[in-house]
């Protein structure tokens, strides 16, 4: 049995309009219920190497060990650090990431940095992760509105990362671990800051609500919307829809059902009338 029975997954990753390489990576394994977005840092080859290492080490660790989110991220951290120490061109490389594990309608999140996890349910969207940055803390504390935070010049300065120095899984100020119930009618969106710096949560939600059964189409549409808004960074998204998530389609389906049932009632009446005569 898969960990995410009936869930659907779609992802997209794009360099954006300003950068010519993509230092983001996405990893999805629907059967294992593992979803990961990574945003590499350290410039060109180094950033890509850091992100690539995380997407290789984390699934391998989770496959070999019990669902230990903190252990997996720590293993990635220490491998990125080791490679950075061994190769001059990769020195100082690091990444930020959001890792989601879905098991039995329960989500476990391991998160470092300013990529994000959103939850969409009953037509509304909410952020489940904190941003480990000065601007993110001000926004999460209510001192900046979302729009002010998006326009802030220090938006991209993060104070937590994966790979810049050796770590233990239990280190304070390293991995944010949280757990939530995953309702069948909900959807999860993992994204790098290339999406959330370009689009407000409400704008993201507007696109997700157009879901018609194909999460890949929504993922591509989100990337396109971020590019239309400027595409200043690499953009990566993973959309995981619960088995009962319908987006706005539920509205259309309800109306079609109403119309069909009206005709059915009319037909039954006619049949009854004919029977009587």
């Amino acid at each position, binding site marked *: 049995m898969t960990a995410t029975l009936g869930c659907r997954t779609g992802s997209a990753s794009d360099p954006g309009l300003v950068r010519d390489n993509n230092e983001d990576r996405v990893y999805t394994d629907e059967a294992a219920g593992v979803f990961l977005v990574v945003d590499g840092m350290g410039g060109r080859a180094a950033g890509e190497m850091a992100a690539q290492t995380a997407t290789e080490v984390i699934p391998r660790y989770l496959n070999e060990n019990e669902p230990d989110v903190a252990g997996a991220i720590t293993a990635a951290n220490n491998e990125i650090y080791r490679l950075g120490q061994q190769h001059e061109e990769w020195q100082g490389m690091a990444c930020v990431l959001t890792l989601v594990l879905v098991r039995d309608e329960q989500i476990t999140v391991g998160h470092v940095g300013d990529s994000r996890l959103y*939850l969409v*349910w*009953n037509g509304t969207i909410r952020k489940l992760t904190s941003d480990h940055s000065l601007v993110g803390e001000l926004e999460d504390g*209510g001192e900046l*509105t979302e729009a002010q935070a998006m*326009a802030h010049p220090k938006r991209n300065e993060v104070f937590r990362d994966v790979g810049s120095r050796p770590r233990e899984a239990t280190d304070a100020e390293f991995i944010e671990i*949280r757990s939530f119930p995953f309702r069948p009618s909900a959807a999860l969106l993992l994204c790098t800051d290339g999406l959330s710096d370009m689009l*407000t949560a409400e704008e993201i939600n507007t696109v997700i609500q157009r879901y018609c059964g194909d999460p890949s189409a929504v993922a591509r549409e989100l990337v396109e919307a971020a590019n239309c808004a400027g595409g200043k960074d690499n953009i990566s998204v993973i959309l995981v829809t619960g088995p009962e998530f319908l987006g706005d389609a539920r*509205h259309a389906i309800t109306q079609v059902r109403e119309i069909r049932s009206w005709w059915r009632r009319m037909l039954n009446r006619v049949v009854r009338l004919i029977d009587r005569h």
Partner: protein
Amino acid sequence: MAQRDTMPVPGKLSGQAVINELIRNMELGQFEMGYSVLLPCVFSLYLHPDDYSRLEGVFDLIAEDAKRALGARVAQLNTKPRILGVMRPGRQAKEFKIAGRDWILEFLPDTEGTVPAGDVEIHSELNETAQPGFRGTKTTLMGREPSVTSPRLPAVTRRTSEVVYAEIRYEDDSGPQLYLVSQNTVRVGRGGDDQPMDLALYTNDEVSREHFVVRRDPATRRFFIVDKSVNGTWLEGKRLKKGVEEALPDRASIGVAQVLTLSFETRK
């Protein structure tokens, strides 16, 4: 189209003229879909610099009035047409709605010298996302050709000067959350089919789809609360009577169906 019969005296732009033009712009910017019609809800209003400085102090009040007028017009558009008092379900009228939480009006001084005194140039968007196929429309009061030079649109569709009236802190199944109140009505509940809430609680069925509503009176800047739930809303430990609006103090704890508690606080 030119509205020469209603053209105001140059230099004397009235609030009513601005609102009429907004409504006209909204109607021109309709985006019809299968079951509903989207109306623009993000408006950028460009005024002559003189008009802008003259009215700068009352933009909030004009915006409040305009939002009411726009809301009333949408309600009017949604009044279902009836033939001899009978509705055929197969012929349902399309619902007029906006693709946003609230109307967004931004007043801007015209820096390109294209908006004469007494005129207003309105650029609208269907939602806050700049996406292909989601454009609204552009209109002017005096029937001029609206200016589309300079990268105006992307720059003006996002609010950076949003006023926060109050904050609501709570913890539901999605962890600790903070909701900033920047509009005059906040519908709170689980939400559901066609019932997206402003503040949606990720929680169980004990909480109603629409549980309670917080309302701000823009004139007095005071807040009110009304319970709409099955299992009740508590204000400072006292259960509210369903459907009866009560004043909400500047700081208050709001109990939701004995499932969770929200902390409300106004901002000065």
